[in-house]
């Protein structure tokens, strides 16, 4: 073993410039140790233990066997909630996109008009993500009453936190050259966004928006809370009552929609990449 290491040391060489001053070495060492300690601490706290999974194969196969075959009879019952959920997720996602664009643009370091606005919009985006959908749902219920409307509002407002954050990040990621070129023509911020930023982030943002749509479709348990049904609620109900074969059928419906959205997303992206 030792001779192997020696051989490696003699024959092989790292292609990265290793820092030679003690301060840098110490810094790297410090971060590695910190990371490993955090990891150990977390693994212990979560009682993570891969061996235990292997003991539980039986339990998993038991539960999976109860999930199959899916109960096809309930499909007709799922149509209405599926449609409702699709409607809600479309409107919610469009609302989220609308809200996220100004926040994301102001929250991108390379195009924000001033650092204060940057800080404020990043804070708002963080706050929007910190508050769960349910709480937004309750707030909107007290404003507009029960039904799909408050649920849609909750989904829209709550999704905008994620969309805005990623929008900001991907604007910060664009090639600085093209932004420089636009600025060099004397174009203003808005024009720079339209001509340099949008063409570059569009594939990513379309992909993100469609993902969020899919996510909103999946996360529609929220609708149950505001009294508007939805496919997620159906899923939870069949799960809670241990009707696993119905649950599997509902999952298949959800998977179909997810796969469809994924297909649409990749088709659109292929066109604009």
């Amino acid at each position, binding site marked *: 073993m030792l001779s192997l290491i020696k051989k490696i040391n003699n024959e092989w060489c790292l292609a990265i410039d290793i820092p030679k001053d003690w301060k840098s070495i110490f810094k790297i060492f410090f971060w590695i140790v910190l990371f490993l300690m955090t990891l150990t601490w977390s693994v212990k706290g979560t009682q993570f233990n891969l061996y235990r999974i292997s003991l539980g194969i039986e339990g998993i196969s038991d539960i999976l066997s109860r999930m199959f075959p899916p109960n096809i009879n309930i499909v007709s019952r799922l149509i209405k909630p599926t449609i409702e959920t699709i409607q809600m997720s479309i409107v919610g996602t469009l609302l989220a996109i609308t809200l996220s664009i100004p926040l994301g643009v102001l929250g991108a370091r390379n195009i924000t008009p001033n650092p204060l606005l940057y800080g404020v919009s990043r804070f708002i985006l963080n706050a929007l993500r910190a508050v769960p959908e349910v709480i937004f749902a309750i707030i909107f219920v007290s404003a507009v009453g029960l039904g799909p409307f408050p649920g849609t509002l909750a989904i829209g407002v709550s999704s905008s936190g994620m969309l805005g954050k990623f929008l900001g990040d991907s604007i910060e990621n664009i090639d600085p*050259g093209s932004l420089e070129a636009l600025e060099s*023509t004397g*174009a203003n911020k808005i024009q720079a966004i339209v001509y340099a930023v949008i063409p570059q982030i569009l594939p990513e943002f379309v992909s993100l928006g469609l993902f969020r749509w899919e996510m909103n479709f999946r996360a529609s348990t929220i609708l149950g809370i505001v009294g508007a049904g939805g496919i997620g609620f159906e899923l939870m109900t069949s799960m809670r009552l241990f009707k696993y074969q119905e649950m599997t059928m509902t999952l298949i419906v959800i998977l179909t929609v997810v796969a469809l959205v994924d297909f649409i997303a990749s088709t659109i992206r292929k066109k604009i990449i």
Partner: protein
Amino acid sequence: MLEIRNLSKTYNNKVIALKNVSLTVNKGEFAMVLGLSGAGKSTLIRSINGLISVEAGSIEFEGVSVSNKENINKIRKDIGIIFQQFNIIKRLTVLENVLCGRLAYSNTIMSSLKLFKKKDINWALDCIERVGLKEKAYVRSDQLSGGQQQRVGIARALAQQPKLILADEPVASLDPYSAEEILELLTEINKKEGITMLMSLHNVMLAKKYGNRILGIKNGILVFDKQVIGLTEKEMQLIYTMDTSLIKEKQQAV
């Protein structure tokens, strides 16, 4: 019209790219910047319209300081720049790229909807035709050859109708025929419309043929600044040799 005083730039506190460069460019001049690869030509050109923040020295364009954030958009409108790496937006068509040069003259809302005044579009198409890309006007720029992309960058600067054009290796990717055509086009613009040119070029022959003033840069130092007429071969050699004795002299003089 352009006054550069004691300009210095050090990247990452390590790489000295410009050292104490001072120069004045007058209206109507056609100045060529020559120098070895890595000498600091791009750094000089990019600092002029404020793309690079310098740590010492001042740059004034028509009496206004470039480091003044408030005027920068107005100044940039008057300075067209052709980038060494083209910096065209690959997902836009040629026409859209060239119209970027018209944005400073266009209504923000309209231009955001890709609506332009007819005369702007015609002017942009004109510029495209002048660089020989007429047939490619509606083609996405990532479907162009290297030289074609470079010409899109040139057309964009032309479309801007600036007072000063900064060009960083504008013909590097072009065949000799197209290169001369482009340089003739720029000379024509320089002569007829009085647009000032500051250009870095690797081809010494072309630099002498089209420029009327040569600026030699070596290791970030402006080693000479002369009219083309009267420039000796020996002086020319200075910037392209590794001999540093002359630079040291110069350095002490500064």
